[in-house]
């Protein structure tokens, strides 16, 4: 993250009061680190506050309380709750994308790569229930500021499935339609969101075989897709 030039010109005595909440001895840390740290704390604070209150009822006071920073610090980083939310959303999606991509790239064969990618996504969301709710449910509720980013994030999953067209026999390619991947991705995301809304985030990983079979069926046929879904 780029340091704020004005901030780096400040002396150590100008550190904001919440720095005193960091363990002693850390006061010598560079301003840039503190700023970054505050930003991450605000983002985590927002995720906690939103999980607790829902986006609409979340106030900046909730966020700063969870982040243990001052209101002034909040406004040094973000101009509004919406802006903080967008930042949080992008941070979460970047992490999610990195995990999915790394898991996918690690596999040689496409069916296994899809399985690994879906597994990474479910694993991340199950382990981070607040972030899961923020990215898959509250992002929609938060309204127009995030909805476009949400749509784009979901569309960014399409190429992972499209890669499955490569090397398929001509009769398979002939019957796949232009919307196949869009419908597959939308169906998977919809199921995941529904489970999060129902408070079943911790059990998301149980969906792995179902989702893998669903995603692979149009390319491999039902029997082979079911086999790949079991990890064999």
């Amino acid at each position, binding site marked *: 993250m780029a340091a704020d030039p004005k901030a780096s010109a400040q002396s150590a005595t100008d550190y904001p009061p919440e720095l005193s909440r960091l363990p002693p001895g850390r006061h010598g840390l560079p301003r840039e680190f503190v700023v970054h740290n505050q930003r991450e704390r605000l983002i985590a604070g927002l995720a906690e506050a939103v999980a607790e209150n*829902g986006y*609409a009822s979340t106030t900046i006071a909730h966020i700063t309380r969870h982040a243990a920073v001052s209101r002034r610090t909040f406004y040094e980083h973000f101009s509004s709750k919406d802006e903080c939310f967008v930042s949080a959303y992008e941070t979460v999606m970047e992490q999610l994308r990195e995990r999915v991509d790394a898991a996918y790239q690690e596999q040689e064969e496409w069916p296994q790569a899809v399985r690994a990618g879906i597994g990474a996504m479910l694993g991340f969301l199950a382990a981070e229930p607040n972030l899961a709710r923020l990215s898959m*449910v509250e992002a*929609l*509720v*938060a*309204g*127009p500021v995030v*909805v476009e980013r949400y*749509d784009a994030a*979901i569309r960014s999953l399409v190429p992972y499935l499209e890669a499955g067209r490569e090397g398929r026999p001509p*009769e*398979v390619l002939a*019957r796949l*339609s*232009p*919307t*196949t991947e*869009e*419908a*597959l*991705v*939308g*169906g*998977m*995301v*919809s*199921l995941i*969101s*529904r489970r999060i*809304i129902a408070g079943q985030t911790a059990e998301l990983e149980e*969906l792995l*075989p*179902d*989702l893998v*079979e*669903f995603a692979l*069926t*149009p390319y491999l*046929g*039902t029997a082979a897709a*079911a086999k790949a*879904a079991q990890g064999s």
Partner: protein
Amino acid sequence: MRPPPGRQQLSREFITQHQRARIISALAEETVARGYRAVTVADIVRRAGIARNTFYENFSSKQDCFLATQDDAVEEALRRVVDAATKVESWQERVDAGLAAFLHYVASEPALARTCIVEALSAGPASLARYEESLQSFIPLFRIGRKVSKRGEELPETLEETIIGGIFWVIYQRIIRDETGQIERLLPELVEFALTPYIGAEAAKRASA
């Protein structure tokens, strides 16, 4: 001269129904024009050409009106889908006829479709929950496919949810790109998408052609 009492009662009922329908269609138009958040009861009242009191005789708030709009639309969609599906015999034909009826409804009511399929997602938690519930009501129509499928109960338990979610996502994308008018063209692709897991891709392609 006053109309006979029975007749008056009938017309009052008619007027109430009519007012409700007008309010709902005004809400949908205003929502499309301004986005749900920005719409006020005053906007709805103005567009519907009714008194503010009349609005509050029918609904307790903007949100109440929005949820009623969702419920009405889902009820009407289901009615049309079931009507169309029961006119044909096989399950494959039923999926085709039901989806055709649904897409036709979406194409013929663009404001209502945008309100209930796009805006409903960002109109607050109650509305989002209502939307999710409404998707569930289509599950039984697909689930019958397990009886014609060779793999029957081996199919993933969540299959119907993912199929319906996928279909709605594709429709959602077309609506936000202002392609609602051409949505009926998606019929063969969506039918094939829905049938493939049950009867295999080749049979699904034939059934959707």
